[in-house]
């Protein structure tokens, strides 16, 4: 049996289309079709839907009068962001410490176990000091903040607040040549840049979508949060502050970092839209859905389940091998020094120009697969380089840093570098898949890297020039 589509000759589809075109050349067909449909649905509604009080319909939008008002719109956005940070930092502090102690306690038993069976010390090194430590650090540093941040953020999202942010900020994005929905994809970036790259599909114009993709990295994702939180609470807030004030100041520092990220996003969008991605802004329609009270418990359970599961999987997939590699690099000795130290020494002169050190740069390089592992790699690098410090809690991490000559400038520049440098490997792969362009995938790593280097270099030079460190 011949199916119709094997007919040879001129493509029957094309002749079909030309036949349709001939019939349709009176124009305005679309309007007639849509108003036909619209008329029918309006007819059905007027028959079947009755409103007791039409005024009531707008009542779910009352909040918009405040949330998007000229006076309160931006203060509320900033306060909301600050509040989310504050809850995250305050809530994650203790559980992180507990987890670190728990893993340290287990490590003691693991070590004892290895000794009991007379396992070779390299095996203990690879498995316990490499794999186990790397993984457990990632979990104890990442998991608690994520378990708090994601549910809180999901609540805001389900409540319907994010479109209001896009509404408030649209003018800024328009001025910088981007799309108002870029505010939404940026919000997704707080969770995960790789996922946010996929969410840029809500932007229909390819040019503006590319802008959103290129700049998404300037929003710190879950892999960078803990680094930022840890460093800012250790170095950026005065040593004297404690308790609530410390949490509060840390939240402020994080807000500052995020605002820098937003500024860079807008600037890069603006430059790109004036150069490589020139073009007129495309159309823009944004729905502001009614506010809906989120199902608090369900949202919390769902988002924590999904996030914690993801963090754990990611920790195992990425951190475990990275832990092993770092340990091996730190313990294979060539010419009197470990490979790790050789590498760190190689990067050190350059890193010093940026206000950091060779270990930090190396951690960022080895951390390309996932930003989560940058900090653990750095710690392992430091610890394998002779200055052995027992990490039995998060407090002693600061001692490790201090013993390697850290100042607040080192911390600040590591935070800035973390905020601005290239996105993680997963994100780059997604960018390539989404844009189908090697050029843009490479550019989306090179542009941020260039900015990160420039900014940290400038900050380091200025701070040193002024003699602040």
């Amino acid at each position: 049996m011949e199916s119709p589509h094997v007919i040879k000759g001129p493509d029957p589809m094309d002749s079909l289309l030309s036949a349709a075109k001939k019939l349709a050349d009176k124009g305005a067909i679309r309007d007639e079709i849509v108003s036909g449909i619209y008329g029918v649905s309006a007819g059905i509604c007027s028959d079947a839907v009755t409103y007791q009080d039409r005024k009531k319909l707008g009542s779910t939008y009352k909040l918009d009068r405040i949330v998007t008002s000229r006076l309160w719109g931006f203060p509320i956005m900033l306060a909301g962001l600050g509040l989310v940070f504050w809850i995250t930092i305050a809530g994650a502090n203790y559980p992180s410490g507990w987890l670190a102690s728990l893993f340290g306690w287990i490590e003691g038993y693991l070590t004892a176990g290895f000794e009991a069976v007379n396992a070779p010390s390299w095996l203990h090194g690879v498995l316990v000091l490499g794999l186990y430590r790397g993984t457990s650090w990632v979990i104890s540093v990442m998991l608690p903040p994520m378990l708090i941040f994601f549910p809180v953020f999901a609540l805001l999202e389900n409540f319907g607040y994010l479109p209001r942010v896009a509404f408030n900020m649209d003018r800024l994005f328009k001025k910088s040549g981007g799309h108002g929905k870029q505010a939404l994809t940026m919000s997704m970036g707080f969770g995960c840049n790789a996922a946010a790259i996929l969410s840029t599909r809500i932007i229909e114009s390819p040019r503006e979508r590319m802008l959103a993709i290129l700049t998404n990295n300037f929003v710190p994702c879950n892999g960078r949060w803990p680094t930022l939180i840890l460093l800012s609470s250790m170095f950026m807030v005065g040593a004297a502050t404690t308790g609530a004030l410390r949490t509060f100041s840390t939240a402020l520092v994080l807000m500052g970092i995020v605002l820098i990220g937003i500024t860079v996003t807008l600037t890069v969008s603006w430059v790109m839209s004036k150069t490589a991605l020139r073009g007129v802004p495309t159309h823009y329609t944004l729905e502001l859905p009614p506010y809906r009270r989120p199902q608090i418990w369900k949202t919390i359970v769902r988002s924590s389940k999904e996030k914690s599961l993801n963090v754990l999987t990611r920790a195992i997939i990425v951190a475990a091998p990275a832990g092993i590699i770092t340990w091996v690099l730190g313990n294979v000795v060539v010419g009197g020094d470990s490979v790790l130290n050789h590498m760190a020494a190689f990067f050190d002169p350059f890193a010093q120009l940026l206000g950091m050190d060779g270990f930090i740069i190396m951690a960022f390089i080895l951390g390309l697969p996932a930003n989560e592992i940058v900090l653990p790699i750095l710690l392992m690098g430091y610890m394998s380089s002779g200055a052995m410090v027992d990490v039995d809690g998060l407090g002693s991490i600061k001692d490790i840093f201090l013993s390697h000559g850290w100042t607040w400038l080192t911390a600040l520049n590591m935070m800035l570098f973390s905020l601005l440098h290239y996105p993680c490997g997963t994100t780059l792969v997604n960018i390539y898949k989404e844009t189908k362009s090697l050029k843009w995938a490479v550019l989306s790593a090179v542009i941020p890297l260039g900015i990160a280097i420039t900014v940290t270099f400038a900050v380091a030079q200025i701070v040193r020039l002024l003699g602040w460190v």
Partner: protein
Amino acid sequence: MSHYTVAFAGNPNTGKSTLFNLLTGLRQHTGNWAGKTVITAEGEFTHNQHVYRAVDLPGTYSLYSNSADEEAARDYIIFEQPDVTLVVLDATSLERNLNLALQVLEITGRAVICINLIDEAKKLGIDINLKAISKRLGVPVVAISARNEIGIEALLNQLERVATGAFTGKPLQITYSEDIERGIAELIPLVEQTVGSRYPARWIALRLLDGDNSLLTSLKAHMRGSKRYETKEVAGHGVTACH
């Protein structure tokens, strides 16, 4: 025990995903179809011993190919021909939401209209006469609240009726202006001759009149044998390690 496929269509922000999550629970994964890179969730649920494969289409305002999402949703309904298309509507803005339902009904009568957020609508003093709507549309209409799990059983029963063929509706077909109807009448034989009777000829004719080139591109691709099997992407695409 039989297996059926249910596609979830609806405007953005109608609680479509809430319903999808409620029915499929955690038995879902991210999938994609037909060589399109659009990601959607897929899951499974059981009702009265029938197993349903649920496909969450992207939330769209229409099926008129204004965007990649709309093309993807349209292509799924036309080419994958799910056993039931479940159209989720927002009870608080039915007028606009019904447009999508009407568009779906022009493609297929194997549909169930699900008016979500009915409790929200009640709170706002909106009364909806389901029988009247169902009578006009010619397919089952159910009012539910996905978040408070109201009306789910009734919804599943209607899904079953349509899926098993116990219900065969005569879906509302919109009568357009004379010009358009004349155009459609002229095109239908041509369409049937070219693409066969598998696809909804009247709808395709209407879309062609509207100059919907993307539909033609999709049709071409599908006529050339099921190209989708070759272009299927790696299942892991889009499943990011974090999120």
